[in-house]
């Protein structure tokens, strides 16, 4: 049937289009799993896809066959007299339709069982003994990340970038500060909504080192499109060094320029919303900037973290992310340059 050919052509066309850019977009893909959960789901996906495509093709072929000359009655007597085909045809059709119905019930049952088994396996991939707990709080439009720990000295607060050790299950406990968001890193696991006044949990685990992109998947307002995060999976030792580095307070500004920059930061609205550990800045409404320079992106990874982008972001955030909550402050160049240098020094 034309429908089938049509769809297949389109499919081919799309895959062609995709291969052109196959290098790009691998970091946020359902079919490029990097952990056990996403791996299981991907397997299930291919299984479903194969089975369902088979069904689709069969149905389409049958439909197409009804279009042959024979069925269009061009080579057969018309039905105008009775408007019913001969009884044996009818009986045959009844048998076929019954069989098809039963078959589809069986297939659906198989799909149901496999899907439930996979679901069960997913929920069993947990490390109850010494879980590594990361609390993710969705906010319009960024992610607050909090490495939970019984020892308050070991609690780390950062934003928009999660580092996890390879091969260790990590428990994501999520909630929201304002509206409903959804935590989604396709290469690692499916979605989990972050709902105000509720805590939702999800277990993720990365089996190979890499940088995986996640994005808010529940519409959350003006800048829903620019609310992404990076998950960096590293070998345990590398993770340890990163973690310890992040625990340290920010380095005191060495040079005069950096001191000036810090002063600018403290004297402007920045200080009301941002925190920099080791200074008097302790705002909680916006990302913690203690080790800002070590992060990959700014504005919830809307832009790569370069001094140029940072300058553009600070002077006019509403251009880059219209509607976001960062204050627009007309800052004169003599103030701006030191501030940028100071922020970029927060390694």
């Amino acid at each position, binding site marked *: 049937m034309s429908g089938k050919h049509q769809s297949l052509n389109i499919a081919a066309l799309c895959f062609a289009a995709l291969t052109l850019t196959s290098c790009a977009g691998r970091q946020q893909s359902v079919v490029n799993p990097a952990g056990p959960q996403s791996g299981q789901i991907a397997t299930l996906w291919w299984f479903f896809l194969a089975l369902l495509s088979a069904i689709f093709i069969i149905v389409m072929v049958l439909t197409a066959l009804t279009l042959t000359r024979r069925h269009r009655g061009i080579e057969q007597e018309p039905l105008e007299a009775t408007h019913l085909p001969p009884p044996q045809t009818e009986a045959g059709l009844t048998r076929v339709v019954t069989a098809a119905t039963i078959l589809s019930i069986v297939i659906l049952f198989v799909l149901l069982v496999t899907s439930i088994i996979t679901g069960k396996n997913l929920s069993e991939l947990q490390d109850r003994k010494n879980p590594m707990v990361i*609390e993710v*709080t969705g906010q319009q439009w960024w992610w*607050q990340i*909090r490495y939970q720990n019984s020892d308050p000295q070991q609690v780390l607060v950062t934003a928009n970038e999660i580092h996890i050790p390879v091969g260790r299950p990590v428990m994501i*406990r999520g*909630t*929201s*500060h*304002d509206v409903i968001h959804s935590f989604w890193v396709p290469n690692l696991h499916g979605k989990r909504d972050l709902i*105000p*006044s*509720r*805590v939702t949990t999800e277990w993720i685990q990365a089996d190979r080192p890499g940088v995986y992109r996640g994005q808010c998947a529940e519409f959350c307002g*003006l800048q829903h499109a620019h609310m992404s995060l990076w998950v960096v999976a590293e070998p345990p030792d590398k993770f340890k060094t990163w973690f310890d580095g992040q625990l340290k307070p920010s380095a005191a500004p060495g040079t005069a320029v950096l001191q000036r920059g810090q002063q600018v930061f403290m*004297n*402007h*609205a920045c200080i*009301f*919303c941002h925190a920099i550990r080791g200074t008097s800045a302790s*705002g909680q*409404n916006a990302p913690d900037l203690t080790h800002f320079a070590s992060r990959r992106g700014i504005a919830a990874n809307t832009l790569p973290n370069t001094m140029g982008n940072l300058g553009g972001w600070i002077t006019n955030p*509403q*251009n880059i992310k*219209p*509607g976001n*909550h960062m*204050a*627009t*402050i*007309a800052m004169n160049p003599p103030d701006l340059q030191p501030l940028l240098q100071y922020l970029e020094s927060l390694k």
Partner: protein
Amino acid sequence: MRIISGVICCCSLMLISSCQREHRDIRPSPARLAIYGDAAREDLIRPGGPVRPEAIVTNPYNASAYDISEGSRLFDWYNCSGCHAHGGGGIGPPLIKKYWVYGGEPANLFDTIVKGRPNGMPSWGGRIPEYQIWELVAYVRSMNGEQPRSATASRQDIIQTNPQNVLQRPPGVTK
């Protein structure tokens, strides 16, 4: 058919009539980015002081629902609620009232926020841009019903659900 044309007519009428309530000044105009600087701080000799800036005396964001809600967000973020609670007052005077020491008109409120006032009200002029001050003014006035009800939020949705408290809850407890 006649009905359809009628619809089109009133739609075009709507298009012409602008609606202040729904206006969203997402990109504040450069004119409203002014930082008044610490020079604006109140001198203790002349409480009240002259209204600044003389240029604008009516709030540009008056009756704009978006800016009122932005104001209420800033009211929390800049911790105004620390002293004024949610209008009820505490360390600072209540903001839901009829008599204002330094005047309750938009221009007076603007002035108060820019310069600060004796006995604790800090000067914000040096810190936050003009447009945010006007948003705060709009919100403070809405507390006293001096903004159209249709532009004011009926209530704050999730004031008491602080994520940290939520996350501290032992599993299973829902409230």
